[in-house]
């Protein structure tokens, strides 16, 4: 019966659209259709191009090639105004509301001319709110409303303009669980009236809750389209996993014989009135061990890495390195203790594009007096060291004086990895170390990580690529919404089971019981699963 609601008449057709920014291809040959009464979810990692394609539809960006048809007619949408005239509205991740104004004033903003009949407007707005049971008072001041309510005001703004195609960019990112439920209810009833919705998200569970059809995006392309009725949550997890990787040989050893290097003791990051970033994280990493953290991006991985690197203070719990409490130290002190960190977004956090390769190689060690005498840098020394790393890591760069921004992504990452491996003599954090790299570079990074493990370093590997986690890790922790769902020896669980955990299904509800153990200190029988179990690598 649900299916009847959706007519097979496309409202929006995005046809072979590409978008190129100066240096990056943000969308490549993207084709998506949206039918009347349909909710289409755009699922993908951060940076997969979901928001870009929707911003093109909304007229904020302009496509490089391709065409967009609305109701079968080719449209040239050059500004949000054009989109609104076609009945398209987009609710951005960051709201565009005036806090000091009332709900009504915010909603009629840009929709009124001349004298304003406030009473009439207020009545209309209140009607709208009541019709969808939003519970928003038309007279309330927006600044006083909680975030969930503000979002409803944004939605009402779109409804007031008689919008029939609603684009929502990560609408649940800021919401509490109950608020998410009411939002989902709204989307269902809105679609039931014959309207259409694009729903951008990277959370699989929401997709299953609300979407009729799911478009999966990866690296700016559509990598798959499935309808909800024919897909399982575990399949989605697999669709989000990329290409297969070369099988690397990895010696297995029992890490429990080795000393504990890093101990994370019930660490939480929670601020009042906000969703917790991390909740009761508890694990340890031994010498020469790789702990993989699997999870869909945006589930607290970034916060975890920041906490371990001193960039974020835990609000509860403590972290020790070789027995020394490091939870209240700053980043510089972490660096001095021999902790390296490859940030997930190297452009933002790991390098300075317009600086030379040499300057980037000394980025993290400016306080360590490794290159300077009383503050005067010996660039000769830095250049020589950089040249060594260029040779050792086969970085394709003519010499140490070129800007790192002029290198290819893979070579940039090699340089960053070379630096962090050197800075992290004790413990190295790899946050998505191979994101956006080609196969050759991925392989190189993987080999490097394994080599460092052999050298006895402790490694935390955060990745959204399950295959990567399986290839490299000794143990795997699954993270979802800032909580560790469980820690397992590599091989104890299948890809499907891990996928379910990543989606937030509690361990007790997994279809097949995952062996007999679920904690991070497995006993007896689990030991035979060291290394890679069968069936993990398809």
């Amino acid at each position: 019966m649900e299916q009847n609601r959706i007519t097979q008449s496309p409202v929006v057709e995005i046809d072979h659209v590409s978008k190129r920014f100066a240096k990056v291809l943000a969308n490549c040959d993207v084709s998506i259709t949206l039918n009347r009464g349909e909710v289409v979810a755009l699922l993908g990692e951060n940076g997969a191009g979901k928001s870009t394609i929707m911003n093109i539809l909304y007229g904020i960006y302009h496509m490089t090639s391709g065409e967009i048809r609305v109701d079968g007619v080719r449209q040239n949408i050059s500004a949000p105004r054009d989109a609104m005239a076609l009945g398209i509205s987009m609710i951005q991740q960051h709201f565009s509301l005036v806090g000091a104004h009332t709900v009504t004033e915010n909603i009629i903003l840009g929709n009124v001319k001349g004298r304003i009949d406030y009473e009439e407007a207020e009545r209309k707005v209140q009607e709208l709110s009541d019709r969808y049971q939003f519970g928003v008072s038309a007279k309330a001041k927006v600044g006083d409303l909680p975030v969930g309510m503000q979002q409803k005001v944004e939605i009402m703004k779109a409804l007031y303009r008689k919008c029939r195609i609603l684009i929502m960019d990560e609408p649940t990112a800021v919401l509490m669980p109950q608020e998410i439920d009411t939002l989902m209810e709204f989307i269902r009833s809105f679609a039931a009236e014959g309207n259409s919705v694009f729903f951008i998200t990277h959370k699989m569970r929401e997709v299953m809750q609300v979407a009729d059809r799911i478009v999966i995006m990866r690296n700016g392309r559509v990598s798959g389209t499935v309808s909800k009725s024919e897909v399982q949550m575990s399949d989605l997890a697999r669709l989000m996993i990329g290409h297969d990787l070369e099988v690397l040989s990895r010696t297995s050893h029992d890490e429990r014989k080795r000393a504990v290097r890093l101990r994370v003791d019930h660490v939480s990051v929670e601020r009042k009135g906000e969703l917790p970033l991390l909740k009761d994280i508890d694990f340890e990493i031994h010498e020469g061990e790789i702990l993989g953290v699997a999870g869909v991006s945006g589930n607290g991985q970034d916060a975890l890495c920041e906490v371990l690197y001193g960039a974020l203070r835990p609000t509860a719990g403590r972290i020790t390195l070789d027995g020394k409490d490091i939870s209240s130290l700053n980043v510089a002190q972490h660096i001095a203790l021999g902790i390296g960190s490859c940030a997930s977004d190297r452009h933002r956090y790991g390098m300075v594009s317009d600086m030379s390769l040499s300057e980037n190689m000394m980025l993290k060690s400016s306080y360590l007096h490794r290159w300077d005498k009383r503050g005067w840098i010996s660039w000769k020394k830095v250049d020589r060291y950089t040249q060594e790393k260029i040779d050792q890591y086969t970085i394709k760069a003519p010499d140490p004086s070129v800007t790192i921004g002029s290198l290819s992504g893979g070579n940039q990452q090699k340089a960053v990895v070379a630096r962090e491996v050197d800075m992290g003599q004790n413990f190295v954090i790899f946050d998505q170390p191979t994101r956006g790299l080609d196969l050759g570079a991925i392989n190189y990074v993987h080999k490097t990580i394994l080599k460092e493990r052999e050298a006895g370093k402790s490694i935390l590997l955060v990745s959204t690529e399950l295959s990567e986690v399986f290839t490299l890790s000794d143990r795997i922790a699954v993270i979802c919404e800032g909580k560790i769902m469980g820690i397992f020896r590599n091989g104890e669980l299948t890809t499907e089971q891990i996928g379910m955990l990543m989606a937030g299904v509690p361990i007790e509800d997994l279809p097949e019981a995952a062996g007999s153990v679920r904690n991070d200190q497995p006993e007896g029988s689990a030991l035979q699963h060291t290394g890679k179990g069968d069936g993990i690598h398809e």
Partner: protein
Amino acid sequence: MNKRREFVRMIVWTVPAIFLGLLICYLFLPLMGVSPSEAFTTMVTGVFSDRFTMGNILIKATPLILTGLAFSFTYKANLYNIGAQGQFYVGCMFAAAISLRLGEKIPGPVVMILAFLGAMAGGGLVGFIIGFLKAKAGANEFLVSMMSTYVIIYLLQYSLGSWLQEDKHEYLKTNSLKKDVWLPKIIDGTSVSLGIVIAVAAAVIVWLILYKTTFGFRVRVTGQNINAARLSGINPKKEYMIAFAVSGAIAGLAGFTEINGMQHMLLTDFEGSIGSYGIGIAIMASANPIGVIFAALLFGFLQVGGTVLSHSTDAPASVIDLMLGFVMLFVLMSFFFRRKYELRTMKKQALTKEES
């Protein structure tokens, strides 16, 4: 290799822009009843015919180099110090006060060293306060530094009417400095003092600090990528405060070279636009300390040339600002077009790479 190419590119874009700016400016001269060709010859011959006028270029350039450096230094940290004028005035007050009060009590060279340090400390303090407000209270440094100038202008006027005022209590100015606290002249037949040497040395030192020390490195990292800086153990707030203090100190130093090197007294509305010219100079030089020297010399030349022009022809004195304005405008436009051109070639390169 890369740096040389960058240098060549800058010359190729900037020099034509300067000439184009001057050319357009000359096209306006007939409106003022001056023939452009006559104006051009008057200006060139007038400026380069005698030593004294040529020397004036260096004199004009001295404070401009320093205010240009002041803006450049904070600019490297991605901050905008619009208040170099005020920091310059504070430097002037410190230099004048120290030179006048201590002038007769201790030997001249010692007084000058104290005035030198005092001017830098005064300007640096003002800079530090701005940086402190930015770092600790999140104040907009652009506005705070700009408004600080107005506060300081009134402070200067008050001081010149009270504790710094000349003995005759007639005008808003100080007594003349005693001769033994004047910076020595370095070129015969001109008024050029040691100030220009100090300014050029300051440019070289700023360059060394920015590019050869870990401190300068951290300032540049903070300016170019604040997130990466934070994750490299650098505290951006600390860098903000220090960068602003250094910037203020450099602007304050201009107070010393002007008071002890050129004017030998302090008066109100003194060199009222060197702060804003400094911003233009820094932008023209892309905030490169060595480039600032040349940009300041160009500004000095235009100022002196403009003065000659307005004296020997019917052109009004505002022709100086007209020239400066046009040259600035065209240099800035050249940056815009250069960026556009480079982006386009980058796009093209990316496309051909994909196709091959």
